[in-house]
């Protein structure tokens, strides 16, 4: 046999006497090669998966900061406007204690008996008391995307409320009878995950007790259905289903994170009452669960002052929202002047921010200043009192009991409270802080206990605090949730703290698994991990990774673009010779400084930078590529839009607060006032003209009110690649006129020419034909729009779809 020199000559084969190929050296070599190559590929995928996860976590961190911005803004409003001013009235209603009513009156308000259920309704028709069959039907109905009629919703919620009112603060569960207890973490409105858990583990029953550890609602789209299922099971098996309150079981948080919106859109007629009832129900949810007196299950965590005995005694229903301090029935205050030492400490600590040098145990926590939820509410309370009171209270501020001062402040909320010099006692603000700690805290790896400045409430607690807490209460394990984990669960603090998270694909499809655990009498957790797969079905592992990565990068690009002005300044500072180029190292460094996001920029850069020359990047060009749209006008508008965009979630929440009747609409005047306030707070120049334009452009029904959702739609950035694929609303607007660009100075009142000529397009690439924009152009003959993309002379780099519709006189 000749040996032809071919490409594959090295891969000769040998055969045994039966003619079977035996694994020759070359086969092994081939296998090794493939394995070596594939492992490299898998490692690259893993790297991408990891940094995608980092991006999501960083963005969530930044998102939480938004919450603090919100509180600060609200605090600013309360501080700077008098009680009677219209600005304050915009939002102060949300902080007013519920009108004092007896429960019977509330039951009348929540009455469902006059709600008729039409014949065509084919969803479940519940009869009370509920039984297991009905609950199973309910689950089935939701699986089939049906919606429960509001009559039954109210009825179910009322029954739930009645039951919760007799439950203790601390659920006590036992694993006797060799029962295994199933424990689930955050669900966040992801019905699929709950159904998956039931599928894998069976539904709650007498033999199968369940504990649900809070955060049932917000973010996901089926929060209502999850609540209804959980409450239904609670009603049928009150001794076998245990619910803990999470930080998202809070009506003000719900305004920001989507639950309020979901309820109002699913229940247009009765949504408001449902929300009100839920507000009460949330406040009546138990706070923690203890298993066999050995294992604590709580949503957030603990602090160095957490005391279960105290927790057991509180009137938990008085703590309606993290943002509303409680009213105390019996006023009491401390006489600080008698204790000059305290007085001096108080004076010193007033101006310091969270420092760790204060004496324990109340040290650092107590000096948690402006940015905390606790402090915010004290600020708010102060503002409500008036100047004189402020000074008096400040004088009474005690270092060793910051929380006690809350009580002092809150007493003045009740009009007939009289200050007296009674002895110092445990106050409701102490209790409130205890509850905040339970619902908001996160573990950290260092020892100690410091304020949780990321979330604005609760604390970060260390392994030493865990050790101490477990010893003091004779417990052996803390099971908590509150934080998303890639594998659904994670141990820390020497396996004494377990984080359990049950919402899979939380950030994006493929981002993480969910998990639940079973706990038998041996109290050793048995884990089950899963991932809801309806969206990932058919996607291979690499496709999964890429898809998740795409979402993360999109969010990141958005973030980069809205900080363009700051980034540009940073780049220009480095590029002193104005070459327009910057090396990657400097690029990464600048971004890190401006965005405060700790991400591996070197690893990421190929994904967000399309090309470099000699290791240098043309940063103006980069912005151009990143960008979506940019308003054609001056710098100031760019910055204003960037700012508005950056604060859009705060803005949206404020709108929803301002919308007192939860209709989804706010008046012109309120909208205008809100924008003005926000701009003053941000020290941004937003001229009246610009605000007017925004107002006009968003009132597409011309009825003097603005649809909040529609307005917020305008803030969604468009993916440039999609734009280039031609899915642009502008191209659909055949019937709109074009106006030439104008960027002159504002004209006088009697001028007919518009000051700005940009087109309102309030849609995203996802929805090619948005009603608003169509209405804007077709309904009102006077409105005209200019097509930025059609005009070759313009710089077509609009940041977002906020543009302004011209209204020629």
């Amino acid at each position, binding site marked *: 046999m000749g040996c032809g020199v071919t490409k594959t000559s090295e891969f000769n084969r040998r055969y045994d006497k039966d003619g079977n190929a035996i694994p020759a050296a070359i086969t092994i070599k081939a*296998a*090794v090669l493939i394995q070596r190559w594939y492992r490299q590929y898998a490692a690259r995928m893993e790297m991408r998966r990891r940094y995608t996860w980092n991006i999501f976590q960083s963005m969530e961190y930044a998102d939480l900061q938004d919450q603090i911005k919100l509180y600060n803004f609200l605090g600013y409003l309360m501080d700077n406007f008098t009680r009677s001013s219209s600005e304050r009235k915009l939002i102060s209603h949300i902080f007013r204690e519920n009108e004092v009513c007896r429960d019977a009156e509330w039951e009348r308000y929540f009455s469902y008996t006059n709600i008729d259920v039409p014949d065509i309704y084919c969803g479940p028709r519940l009869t009370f008391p509920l039984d297991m069959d009905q609950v199973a039907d309910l689950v089935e109905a939701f699986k089939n995307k049906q919606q429960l009629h509001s009559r039954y919703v109210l009825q179910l919620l009322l029954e739930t409320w009645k039951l919760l009112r007799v439950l203790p603060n601390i659920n006590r569960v036992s694993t006797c009878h060799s029962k295994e207890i199933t424990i689930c973490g955050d669900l966040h409105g992801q019905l699929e995950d709950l159904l998956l858990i039931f599928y894998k583990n069976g539904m709650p029953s007498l033999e199968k007790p369940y504990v649900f550890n809070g955060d049932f609602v917000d973010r996901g789209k089926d929060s209502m259905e999850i609540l209804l299922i959980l409450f239904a099971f609670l009603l049928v098996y009150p001794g076998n289903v245990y619910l803990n309150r999470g930080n998202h079981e809070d009506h003000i948080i719900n305004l920001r994170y989507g639950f309020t919106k979901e309820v109002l859109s699913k229940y247009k007629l009765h949504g408001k009452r449902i929300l009100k009832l839920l507000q009460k129900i949330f406040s009546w949810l138990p706070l923690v669960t203890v298993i066999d007196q050995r294992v604590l299950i709580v949503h957030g965590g603990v602090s160095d002052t957490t005391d279960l005995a105290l927790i057991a005694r509180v009137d938990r229903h008085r703590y309606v929202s993290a943002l509303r301090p409680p009213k105390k029935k019996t006023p009491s205050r401390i006489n600080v002047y008698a204790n000059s030492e305290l007085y001096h400490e108080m004076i010193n600590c007033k101006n310091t921010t969270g420092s760790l040098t204060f004496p324990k145990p109340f040290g650092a926590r107590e000096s948690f200043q402006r940015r905390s939820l606790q402090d915010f509410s004290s600020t708010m309370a102060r503002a409500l009192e008036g100047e004189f009171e402020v000074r008096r209270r400040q004088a009474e501020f005690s270092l060793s009991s910051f929380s006690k001062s809350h009580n002092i402040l809150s007493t003045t909320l009740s009009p007939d409270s009289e200050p007296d010099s009674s002895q110092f006692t445990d106050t409701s603000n102490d209790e409130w802080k205890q509850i905040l700690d339970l619902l908001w805290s996160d573990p950290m790896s260092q020892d100690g206990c410091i304020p949780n400045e990321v979330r604005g409430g609760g604390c970060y607690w260390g392994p030493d605090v865990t050790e101490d807490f477990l010893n003091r209460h004779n417990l052996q394990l803390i099971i908590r949730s509150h934080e998303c984990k890639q594998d659904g669960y994670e141990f820390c603090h020497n396996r004494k703290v377990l984080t359990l998270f049950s919402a899979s694909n939380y950030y994006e499809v493929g981002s993480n698994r969910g998990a639940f655990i079973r706990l038998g009498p041996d109290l050793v957790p048995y884990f089950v991990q899963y991932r809801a797969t309806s969206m990932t079905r058919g996607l291979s592992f690499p496709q999964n990774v890429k898809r998740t990565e795409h979402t993360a990068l999109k969010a990141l690009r958005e973030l980069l673009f809205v900080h363009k002005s700051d980034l540009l300044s940073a780049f220009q500072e480095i590029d002193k010779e104005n070459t327009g180029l910057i090396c990657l190292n400097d690029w990464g460094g600048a971004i890190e400084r401006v965005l405060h996001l700790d991400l591996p920029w070197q690893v990421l850069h190929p994904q967000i930078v399309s090309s470099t020359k000699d290791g240098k990047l043309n940063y103006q060009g980069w912005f151009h590529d990143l960008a979506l749209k940019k308003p054609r006008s001056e710098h100031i508008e760019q910055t204003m839009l960037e700012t508005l965009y950056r604060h859009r979630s705060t803005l949206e929440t404020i709108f929803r607060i301002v919308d007192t009747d939860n209709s989804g609409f706010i008046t012109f005047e309120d909208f205008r006032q809100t924008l003005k306030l926000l701009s003053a707070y941000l020290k941004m120049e937003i001229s009246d003209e610009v605000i007017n334009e925004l107002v006009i452009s968003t009132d597409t029904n011309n009825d003097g009110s603005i649809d909040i959702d529609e307005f917020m739609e305008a803030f969604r950035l468009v993916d440039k690649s999609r734009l280039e694929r031609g899915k642009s609303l502008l191209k659909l607007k055949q019937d709109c006129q074009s106006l030439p660009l104008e960027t002159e100075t504002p004209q006088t009142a009697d001028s007919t020419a518009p000051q700005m000529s940009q087109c309102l397009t309030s849609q995203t690439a996802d929805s090619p034909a948005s009603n608003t924009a169509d209405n804007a152009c077709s309904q009102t003959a006077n409105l005209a729009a200019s097509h930025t993309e059609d005009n070759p002379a313009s710089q077509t780099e609009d940041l977002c779809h906020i543009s302004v519709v011209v209204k020629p006189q």
Partner: protein
Amino acid sequence: MADKYSADTIITETQKRISNAFDVFDHESNKTVDVREIGTIIRSLGCFPSEADLHDIIAELEEEEPTGFVRYEKFLPTMTKILLERKFRPITEDLLLQAFEVLDQQKKGHLEPEELTKYLTQEGEPFTQEEMDEMLSAAVDPDKNVILYKDFVSMMTFDDTR
């Protein structure tokens, strides 16, 4: 002078890359990574070591008393050397295709999942079941239930991150 500058820049850029990749796996932000992640980090930086190669590297990196963690100070010089010397070069598309062709002894133009599984989980540096499942999920044509390796190789070697 220009050469030295660019040589220094290359080293700096290289080290920055290494640092970034290391940070992704540094969960406690204390400049250490779990030793089991070293392989992933090295590979993600563009190298194609075999498992045997990795064992050697890790042996070099581990402390006298293995803690299960690798410190950045130790990792950096080793990794810099690997990158600058271009050790563990990439496997070309051609070579990879040849390897698949070798396994396709009957010259069918495709491989059965069971065939490939047998080779890759029994020969060479065997895959774990998980690795095999992952590869199959990307490699198997869902309609024909075989591995069209030519297409697979083309698809996988197209690096869409660059």
